[in-house]
């Protein structure tokens, strides 16, 4: 196929595309003048984004001095093309500024105050390309910031990256739009550089054949290129008939190869790559001379200019500077229209500060006579007369009048059916329209709206997915929560059932407990009597009092033990629906037991206070009576022993409660088993404390005068967790005034510590019991 195409091309026969127009070329204005080198402008405005894709990351800051060719942005992505400083100078600002876009909207631009030195950064000129790998060449192209200079601005390094089976490399030198001669002049003046650039692309893509398409209206350019490529077999200069829009990518492909690039496909899909003449020149500059894309040829033309010509414009040059250089006739005329791009596809710019970018090839300043429509405020549009001329000239073989109606009616689905997306915005239809309908304009609006709609649809789809995902997540969390609750409830129930074998002796225990309850009730009444009596107690009565107190303490301890056993056993002896009732009962029993305890604590406090009073009365007597220190010593040593015993017991209790604490943590989430451990540990601790107390009291009997001190302190420590201070120790201190302080102090200290420890242990045990109660209640609610 390639051979037949080449054969046909060598014979000078080409294909044709549908439609097309022949507008007045107007190229004579500039085509016979060499490209002018301009003086440096005072300030350059360099937009960060000058191509299709995204803007790069800024590398410079305000106030920084940059050299010519220095990169201003960094490419982090293949679709990001860097920009470079077109000359040396200082960055004066980085701010939003109007850019070359039909909307007249602003984008981030780097403002460069030119210092006039034009100092180059260090360049790495490559004399021998054979030393470079393809990868290095592509990297050079990417770093040079080259984007397609024909108009679209697609990143060139993507286009020249190796792809298999490239049949045709087409170099687009058609330049079909009226007025523009930038590529024409470039071909005339830089044909060798262009051919060098083509050779680089040839090396990267290895196409079967390279075709340079030039319209027949550029004889000098054709001659120059033919001379430059005479020695190269692979490159064919193809002179194609002049017609607008020959320079369109798909149109030129069709003219040169006869292949029609079908809707929705790109030429690359058919093994064809197209590059613009100016891009080839830029590639050569970048690879051989390490010169990034910082300038381009711009045709500044139009009959409103005295000196229309092609100029080498640095990227970022504001167009008012270019117009000054070409002496605009009516520079003061505010209504002067300035068009960026050609007359067919360009757009009027909203500000004279709009800078030249990589894709700007022409600045057109028409006179009123030349282009009256550009000066009209209101469109002369009249109704479509259905002449059908527009469809005759459409290079994409669309139906422009149908499209126009659908676009006006905003019938986007119909526009899709009519293949609006294949419209290349060439403007041929509007050019021939006798009703002066700005057809392309309607298409552009419709295209923008369709694009917007597509973006909205995408966004809606995304929102929907996120909404559904959120709903799913919330539901999952809810289910997980419920599951957790159910699991916890089940675990608690299982734990209760598991506890049953441990409490097999429940019945006998209950019987024993009943007996103890009675005993407790009796002793409780007694202790209350004691408490009331103790207020009037005399020191001589203390012995009797003590006996009853010992009995009370034992009874109390037993009662507590029994109550706890009840609390644990009752729920575990039964299960099923009966559970609820029994649990309730046990809960209330426990509540009762805690109430009971509180009462006892209150009683004990009262008792202790009474004792303290009596002690303080007694102590001075003792001091007076004693002639020798030895009895006191024995008394105090016995006292000490008792205290140590009590402290040990308390320490043990503390340890036990601590060990109970660890499983207690699990209880919250898992089961109620530790609850029982806690209570049993608690019980043990209390038993130990009670035993210690009993022992203490036995000792106290032997030393009647002193015992009350112990009694007071012990009762305080065991029953009243809150009232731990130095007060109960006061009488003791008075008694031991004569004893060596070194002996006394440590004992008192250990005693205090032990008391505090015991109190803490007790408080913890109580807390656990309470928690157990609440957990049980919750459990019941859950069931």
């Amino acid at each position, binding site marked *: 196929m390639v051979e037949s195409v080449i054969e046909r091309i060598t014979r000078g026969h080409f294909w044709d595309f549908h439609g097309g127009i022949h507008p007045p070329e107007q190229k004579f204005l500039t085509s016979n003048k060499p490209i002018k080198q301009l003086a440096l402008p005072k300030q350059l405005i360099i937009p960060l984004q000058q191509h299709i894709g995204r803007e790069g990351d800024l590398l410079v800051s305000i106030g920084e001095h940059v050299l010519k060719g220095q990169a201003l942005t960094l490419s982090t992505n293949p679709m990001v093309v860097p920009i470079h400083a077109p000359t040396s100078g200082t960055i004066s600002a980085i701010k939003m500024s109007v850019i070359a876009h039909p909307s007249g909207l602003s984008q981030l631009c780097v403002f460069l105050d030119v210092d006039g030195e034009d100092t180059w950064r260090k360049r790495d000129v490559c004399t021998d390309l054979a030393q470079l790998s393809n990868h290095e060449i592509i990297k050079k192209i990417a770093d040079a910031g080259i984007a397609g200079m024909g108009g679209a601005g697609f990143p060139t390094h993507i286009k020249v990256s190796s792809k298999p089976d490239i049949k045709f490399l087409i170099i687009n030198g058609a330049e079909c739009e009226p007025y523009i001669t930038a590529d024409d002049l470039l071909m005339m003046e830089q044909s060798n550089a262009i051919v060098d650039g083509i050779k680089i692309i040839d090396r990267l893509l290895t196409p079967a054949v390279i075709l340079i398409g030039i319209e027949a209206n550029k004889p000098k350019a054709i001659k120059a290129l033919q001379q430059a490529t005479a020695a190269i077999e692979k490159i064919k200069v193809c002179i194609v008939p002049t017609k607008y829009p020959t320079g369109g990518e798909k149109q030129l492909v069709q003219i040169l190869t006869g292949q029609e690039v079908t809707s929705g496909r790109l030429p690359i899909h058919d093994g064809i790559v197209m590059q613009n003449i100016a891009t080839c020149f830029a590639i050569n500059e970048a690879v051989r001379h390490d010169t990034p894309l910082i300038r381009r040829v711009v045709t500044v033309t139009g009959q409103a200019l005295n000196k229309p010509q092609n100029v080498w414009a640095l990227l970022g040059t504001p167009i008012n500077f270019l117009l000054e250089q070409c002496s605009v006739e009516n520079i003061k005329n505010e209504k002067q229209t300035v068009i960026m791009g050609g007359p067919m596809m360009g757009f009027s710019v909203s500000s004279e500060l709009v800078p030249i970018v990589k894709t700007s090839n022409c600045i057109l300043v028409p006179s009123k006579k030349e282009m009256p429509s*550009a000066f009209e405020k209101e469109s002369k549009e009249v109704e479509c007369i259905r002449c059908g001329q527009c469809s005759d000239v459409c290079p994409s073989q669309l139906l422009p009048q149908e499209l126009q109606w659908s676009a006006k009616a905003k019938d986007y689905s119909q526009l899709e059916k009519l293949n609006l997306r294949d419209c290349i915005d060439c403007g041929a239809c509007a050019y021939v329209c006798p009703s002066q309908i700005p057809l392309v304009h309607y298409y552009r609006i419709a295209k923008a709206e369709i694009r917007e709609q597509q973006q909205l649809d995408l966004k809606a789809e995304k929102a929907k997915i996120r909404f559904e995902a959120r709903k799913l997540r919330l539901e999952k969390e809810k289910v997980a929560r419920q599951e957790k609750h159910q699991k916890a409830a089940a675990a608690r129930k299982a734990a209760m059932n598991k506890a049953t074998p441990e409490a097999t002796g429940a019945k006998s225990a209950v019987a024993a407990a009943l007996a103890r309850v009675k005993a407790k009730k009796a002793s409780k009444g007694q202790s209350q009597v004691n408490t009331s009596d103790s207020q009037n107690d005399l020191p001589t009565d203390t012995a009797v009092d003590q006996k009853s107190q010992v009995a009370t303490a034992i009874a109390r301890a037993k009662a507590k033990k029994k109550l706890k056993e009840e609390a644990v056993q009752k729920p575990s002896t039964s299960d099923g629906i009966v559970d609820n009732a029994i649990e309730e009962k046990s809960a209330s029993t426990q509540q009762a037991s805690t109430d009971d305890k509180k009462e006892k604590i209150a009683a004990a406090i009262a008792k202790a206070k009474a004792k303290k009073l009596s002690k303080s009365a007694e102590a001075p007597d003792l001091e007076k009576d004693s002639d020798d220190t030895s009895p006191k010593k024995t008394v105090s040593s016995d006292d000490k022993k008792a205290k140590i015993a009590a402290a040990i017991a308390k320490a043990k209790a503390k340890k036990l409660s601590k060990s109970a604490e660890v499983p207690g943590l699990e209880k919250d989430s898992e089961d109620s088993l530790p609850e029982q451990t806690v209570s049993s540990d608690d019980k043990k601790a209390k038993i130990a404390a009670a035993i210690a107390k009993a022992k203490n009291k036995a000792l106290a009997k032997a030393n009647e005068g002193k015992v009350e001190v112990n009694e007071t302190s012990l009762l305080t420590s065991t029953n009243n967790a809150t009232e731990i201070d130095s007060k109960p120790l006061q009488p003791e201190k008075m008694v031991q005034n004569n004893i060596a302080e070194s002996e006394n102090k440590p004992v008192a200290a250990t005693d205090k510590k032990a008391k505090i420890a015991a109190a803490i242990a007790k408080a913890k045990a109580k807390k656990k019991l309470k928690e157990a109660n609440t957990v049980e209640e919750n459990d019941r609610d859950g069931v």
Partner: protein
Amino acid sequence: MNILLAILVLGSIAAVFGALLGFASVRFKVDADPIVDQLDALLPQTQCGQCGYPGCKPYAQAVADGEAINKCAPGGEDTIKKIADLMGVEVQPIDDSHVSGDAPKSNRPKVAFVIEEDCIGCTKCIQACPVDAIIGAAKQMHTIIIDECTGCDLCVAPCPVDCIEMRELPDTIHNWQWDLTSIPVKQLD
């Protein structure tokens, strides 16, 4: 006798077709109501709840069940027209009682914006956001992911310090739309 025959013949025909229809209704049963999905696709998916339903899909379901079609404020007239076409009912003007806040001055889409210095990190807006477009944690400043925000307004009311406001998306060259006031370019002799 003829009457009996006629009854018999017609009866048997009715039975045959009845059986056929019955079979078809089982064999070709459509599981979901496809109209709901079609309606859901027409709705703007802002999930704003201005229609009184907790999301676009529930409203689509409701419309399929005969709810009024003019309750979608973010969708506007266009959506109502599309729903009317799909449901084969008359186009109705939008129900103002379902438009929260003032009538929009422009058609530009809006997104929520957190005035970050005022944010106290209460996470209330995060809980209100139907599309999880707000990032933040308790006592940490929150912010909106603009690309995910549907502009539904639901986060504005719960904010205890009024630090969320709805802002129009700025015009950029990416979302700019051509307008007819531009000067058409034409070539004449």
